[in-house]
Every structure is written in structure tokens, then in C-alpha cells.
């Protein structure tokens, strides 16, 4: 098979000692930063971007892949071990994982999360390996109108599905599109919305938007309502024996596979990323559980950790399918990865597999390697991650602020970027405070200019005939799918809102709400 040979070549590149070291370093740093409370995968990737600035493209992307997977994984450790009651419903893993930890089975929860991530990540990467080249081949035939359709789908699904209300998501998207407008316009070469500031002529870098919203905005928001007092961690028993018993294995493997089956497809479509996948996986595990396991749900059922964690990681790999084959970012993290590609003059999209095939396959190979490294690294290092979780919060957030400053300044070595970062950061703070999702803004910032380009290309081809936008079967299918996804997503969100706004947020009633919703 074609792609198999290419993959082997990719392995030959990625297994070179120097690149292997980058992968190891990426996985390690990604996990270490991802474990830090308050730092999600998007922020991990955004904050660690400066590390890649001076590497060659292959090395940078390999490092980046490690950071991406590591950051994904680190987050689950946090939600299992950190004792923060009251908000468990927002992270599905914490529902059961936190409870398992409290019951003294934290090690088993961490182990099933780690092994499940590995299984799901590997299967999803295999799927990516075999699906991506085919999709890329199909995608080469797509015209500007089709691309525009895809981007509209991504806009609306991301804008409408994330966050608590549709208008707020669209405002966030609009703000991102607005920032995307700033800069030199491609076709006529004139500057738009730059107010004569030379630094704005190149546009506002999406890294600034992401770091501003996630690092600065988050820090300001946490600072405004910091949980004071000692950090409460749930102790984990040491030793290999306590990790997973035979029955844990028996109860985990099916949820892993089901989680993968749910997570990967959802990751590939722009439907709000891993959140939806983890929720669906949790709901289905809860529904499928029988006997003793069913009684345990809500009190620490291992299925409720294994499934969502697998779904989470499978979705992370699924996101890479539209990213690599169509150049379409569907999550905030993907938007940052695209901008990293762009800084090397590489344009993700259907031609990537032809023009940069060495690079792409090295990247995909490093995903396999990263998965293995995560597994060998994380099980023994749990003790260290626990220490990381204990960092006093003032120093943690001071450090995030310092690195946000580094990320902004290192872009162009110009303090104007620092100022832009600050403005975006304050906006991010207000958005969090008033319940606006921030991810649509990041996606809008990077996808806006791309969409305008495709739209204008399409219009140039059709001589201004708007019907051209829906002339191809592909575009029609895309718009129809969009309607289905948005309606289905809003329905799902209602269901979930009912779960999270259950009369009293004692976890048992939250569980009941899921129960009712799945009946």
C-alpha cells in the first residue's frame, strides 16, 4: 500500500535520535504544562509555541505533536486528582474519576485513563493514516465554492455549538472574524482597519489571539475569583499492584473501544471538538452498564473514566483529519497548529500530502511514537505530576503571565504585539466573566481570511453569480450536513444543560439527569 510505504519512511525520519528527543521532550513538557490546573490543551499548545520558533519545520512539528498529545493527557490527571468539588460536571472524566480517587482507587483511574488514551490514540492514528491520503485526494478536486461551504460549516458549528448560548458564540466568532480582517488585503493590496499602524499591516497573528484569550484572559479571570487556601489533592497509593486489577481490565477494554468509536468521527467533523465526544461516551457507558457497575456510576465507576478518556484522545486525533487534508481548523487548538504550519510557509490542505509528504508522514509517525512515549512516561511519573499540581497558585499564574509575555514578544520582537495581547486578554477576561465561549474567536481569527479568499475566488470564477456557491453537490451536502449538525448539537446541548443545571449540583442528581436523558 502507498501510504504504508510513506508511513515507514515517516518512521525512518521520526526515529532519528534528534527527532526522537524532540518527541520525548514535547510529550514531557506538554504533559507537565497540561497537568497544571487551569491550563487546557489549547493553552498548553499556545504557551509552548515559542519553543518551536527556531527549529526546522520537521523538528518543530514533531515537538508540537508531542505537546498536543501530552497536553491532552495531562488534563485528565488534573481532573482526577484535584479536589475541586462543585464544577465536576464541566469535565466528564472528573465525574467518576474524582470519585474513584476519593474511594482510594485513584491509581486505577489514572491507569485506565492512560492506557485508554494510548489505545484510543493509537487506533485513531491508524484511522488517520489510512483515511487522510484518500480524503486529500478527493479534496484536491474541490473548488473555491466547496471550500467556502466547508468554512461556513466550521464557522457556524463552532460558533453555535460552543458555550452556553448561540448568540454569545456568534459574538465571539464575530470578534474573531473582525480581528482577522485587520491587515493588508490580498487582492487589491490595500490596508484595512490598520489605522495607519505599521505593525498591523501584517495582520493580527492568531497566536496573539489564542495566547491572549487563553493565557492572559484565563489568568485575569482566575485572579478575579481565586480559590484561596491550600491546594487539596487526593492522595494516590503507590506501587504497581494497585493500578489495575483483572476486573478493572475486563471492565475497561470495551469502553476504550466504544470511546474511540465515538470520539474519532466527532473529532473529524466540526461539532465542538472533544467536549461533545466525552459527554456522549459518558452517557452511553452509563446506559450500557449493568449490574454492579451500574450501581457504581456516580460513586466511581471505572467505565465512566475509561470511555470518556478514550473518546477525548480519539477526538484529538480526529481533529487532525480535516486539519491536514483540508486545512480546516475545527478547534482552538487546531487553529494554533495551523498558524504554526503557516509560520513555516506550509499551507495545510489537500496538496500537503503531495508537496510536503516527507514532513506529513514524519508528523504522523511521531503521533504513534508520542502515544507510546506518553504511556511509558506517564504511568511511572504520576508522583511527579502530583507534585506539579501542588505549585502554589500565585506562582503558577505569575509564570503563565510571564510565558504569555514571552509568546507575544518572541513573535516579532516588538512590544506592539505585547499591547495587542493585553487588549485581547482583557477582552478574554470579560468574555469568560459574562459567559462567552472563547474558542470561536480563535477559530474565526484564522478561518476568516481563508474564507474571504475562497469566497472571492469563487465569485471571480462565476462572475458574481451567487448561485455558484451552491452549484456543486459537495457544497449542497455540506450545507445540509451543517443544518443537521447545528440542530442536533443544539438539541444535545439542551440535554447537557439540563444535566449541568440539575436542581442541586450534588453529583448523584447530575447523574440522574444523564440517566433520564439517555432513556
Amino acid at each position, binding site marked *: 500500500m502507498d501510504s504504508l510505504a510513506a508511513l515507514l519512511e515517516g518512521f525512518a525520519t521520526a526515529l532519528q535520535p534528534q527527532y526522537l528527543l524532540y518527541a520525548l521532550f514535547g510529550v514531557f513538557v506538554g504533559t507537565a504544562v497540561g497537568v497544571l*490546573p487551569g491550563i487546557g490543551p489549547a493553552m498548553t499548545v499556545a504557551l509552548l509555541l515559542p519553543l518551536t520558533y527556531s527549529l526546522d519545520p520537521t523538528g518543530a512539528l514533531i515537538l508540537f505533536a508531542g505537546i498536543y498529545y501530552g497536553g491532552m493527557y495531562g488534563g485528565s490527571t488534573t481532573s482526577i486528582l484535584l479536589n475541586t468539588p462543585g464544577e465536576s460536571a464541566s469535565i466528564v472524566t472528573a465525574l467518576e474519576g474524582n470519585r474513584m480517587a476519593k474511594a482510594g482507587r485513584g491509581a486505577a483511574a489514572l491507569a485506565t485513563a492512560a492506557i485508554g488514551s494510548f489505545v484510543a490514540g493509537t487506533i485513531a492514528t491508524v484511522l488517520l493514516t489510512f483515511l487522510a491520503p484518500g480524503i486529500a485526494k478527493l479534496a484536491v478536486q474541490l473548488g473555491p465554492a466547496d471550500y467556502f461551504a466547508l468554512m461556513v460549516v466550521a464557522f457556524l458549528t463552532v460558533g453555535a455549538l460552543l458555550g452556553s448560548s448561540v448568540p454569545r458564540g456568534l459574538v465571539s466568532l464575530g470578534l474573531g472574524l473582525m480581528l482577522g480582517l485587520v491587515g493588508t488585503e490580498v487582492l487589491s493590496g490595500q490596508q484595512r482597519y490598520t489605522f495607519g499602524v505599521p505593525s498591523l499591516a501584517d495582520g493580527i497573528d492568531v497566536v496573539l489571539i489564542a495566547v491572549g484569550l487563553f493565557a492572559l484572559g484565563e489568568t485575569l479571570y482566575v485572579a478575579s475569583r*481565586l480559590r484561596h487556601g491550600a491546594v487539596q489533592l487526593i492522595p494516590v497509593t503507590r506501587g504497581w499492584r494497585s493500578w489495575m486489577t483483572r476486573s478493572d481490565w475486563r471492565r475497561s477494554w470495551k469502553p476504550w473501544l466504544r470511546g474511540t468509536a465515538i470520539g474519532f468521527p466527532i473529532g473529524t467533523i466540526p461539532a465542538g471538538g472533544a467536549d461533545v465526544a466525552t459527554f456522549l461516551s459518558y452517557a452511553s457507558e452509563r446506559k450500557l452498564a449493568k449490574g454492579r457497575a451500574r450501581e457504581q456510576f456516580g460513586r466511581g465507576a471505572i467505565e465512566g473514566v475509561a470511555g470518556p478518556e478514550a473518546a477525548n484522545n480519539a477526538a484529538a486525533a480526529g481533529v487532525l483529519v480535516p486539519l491536514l487534508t483540508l486545512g480546516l481548523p475545527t478547534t482552538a487548538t487546531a487553529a494554533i497548529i495551523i498558524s504554526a504550519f503557516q509560520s513555516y510557509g506550509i499551507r495545510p490542505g489537500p496538496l500537503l500530502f503531495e508537496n510536503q509528504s516527507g514532513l506529513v508522514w514524519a508528523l504522523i509517525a511521531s503521533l504513534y511514537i508520542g502515544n507510546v512515549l506518553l504511556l511509558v512516561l506517564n504511568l511511572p511519573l504520576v508522583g511527579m505530576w502530583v507534585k506539579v499540581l501542588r505549585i502554589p497558585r500565585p506562582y503558577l499564574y505569575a509564570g503563565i503571565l510571564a510565558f504569555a509575555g514571552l509568546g507575544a514578544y518572541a513573535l516579532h520582537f516588538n512590544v506592539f504585539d505585547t499591547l495587542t495581547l493585553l487588549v485581547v486578554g482583557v477582552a478574554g477576561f470579560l468574555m469568560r466573566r459574562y459567559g462567552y465561549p472563547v474558542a470561536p474567536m480563535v477559530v474565526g481569527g484564522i478561518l476568516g481570511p481563508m474564507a474571504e479568499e475562497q469566497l472571492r475566488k469563487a465569485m471571480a470564477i462565476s462572475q458574481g453569480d451567487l448561485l455558484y456557491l451552491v452549484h456543486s453537490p459537495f457544497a449542497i451536502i455540506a450545507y445540509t450536513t451543517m443544518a443537521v449538525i447545528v440542530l442536533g448539537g443544539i438539541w444535545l446541548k439542551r440535554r447537557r444543560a439540563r444535566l449541568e443545571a440539575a436542581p442541586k449540583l450534588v453529583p448523584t442528581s447530575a447523574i440522574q439527569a444523564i440517566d433520564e436523558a439517555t432513556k
Partner: protein
Amino acid sequence: MTTETPDPAGGPRPAGAGPRRPIGELAFAVVCALLGVGVIVGAGAIRVPPGSASVLGPRVFPYFVGALLLAAAVAVVVAIATGHRGQPDEGEDVDPNAKTDWRAVVLLVVVFCSQLVLIEFVGWPIAIAVVFAGAALTLGAKRWWIAVLVGLGLGLATQLLFGTWLGLSLPAGPLLDWIPIFNG
């Protein structure tokens, strides 16, 4: 913990969810609407190159973006007016019952602003030390000298790692430029 969750319909809310009258929330939505108006007005100032009448000009997309922003922001204003308030984000370190600490937010913004001047005048390591120590103390670090020492260490370490080793041109500043390892 077991306190009631914020009720979107404006029922009893925890203290941290904002004042009863959503002035700040309304103001933010109105500012977004005004930004939308600004984008539309600004689009009118974009020069349309001659001879592109039948093709989509450089103004159309901005008009669209402005209209989207304006419409969505107006929808939010209407939603707030009818009692559908936004739900503040949750997070591991966020205390849902805390009152908003505006002093900390303003101080952090000021501390972060100091970089605008300090990076160019005293160099990267010291600017970072100031940001780190300032932020840590604002957030309630107990011992100021630890914050300062860690900040200095972080500044020097990033200067070494990113400036010297990875080759990014971070200015070491007049205080450190004489050390060979820092001026690359």
C-alpha cells in the same frame, strides 16, 4: 459544592456571578455591537479598485462580518434584557462563590503593561522578573523575596534557553549585556 447552580432565568445566584443588575454584562454586549457598527462604517472607507464591479470587492466580507457581529450582539442584549444571563466560566482554581476582585485584575493589567517599557530599557530578564514578582504578589504570594528570586531566575533561564540556546533575539538589557553568554 452543594450550593444551587446559577439560574439562567435570574433567580437566586451565588455572590460571584455578578451584581443583580447586569450593567457590566450589558455594557460588554453594547461595546460588541458598537464594534460591529465600527466595522460596517470602516468598510465604507475601503477603496474598491475600478473594474471589479461584477466580482466581489474588498468591502463585502467586512460588511458581512460587521453585520454578523452587530446582529449577534443585539441578540445578546435582548437575551440579557429578558433575563437570560451568561454563565461565568468554571475552572479548577475558580471559586464560584467569590466576589470579583477588581483590584487584582487592574493590578495584573498594570504589571503586564510594565513590559511595554521595561523590555526595551532594562532588558528581558529584568522585565520578566518584574512581571513574575508583581503578579505573584498581587495574587497573594506570602514572601516577597521568594517571588523576586524566582522571577529573576525565570528571567535568566528564559534568556538563556530562548535567547542564547534557541537563538531568539531577546534583549538582555544594559545590565547583562557585558556578560558574553547573554549578548550572543
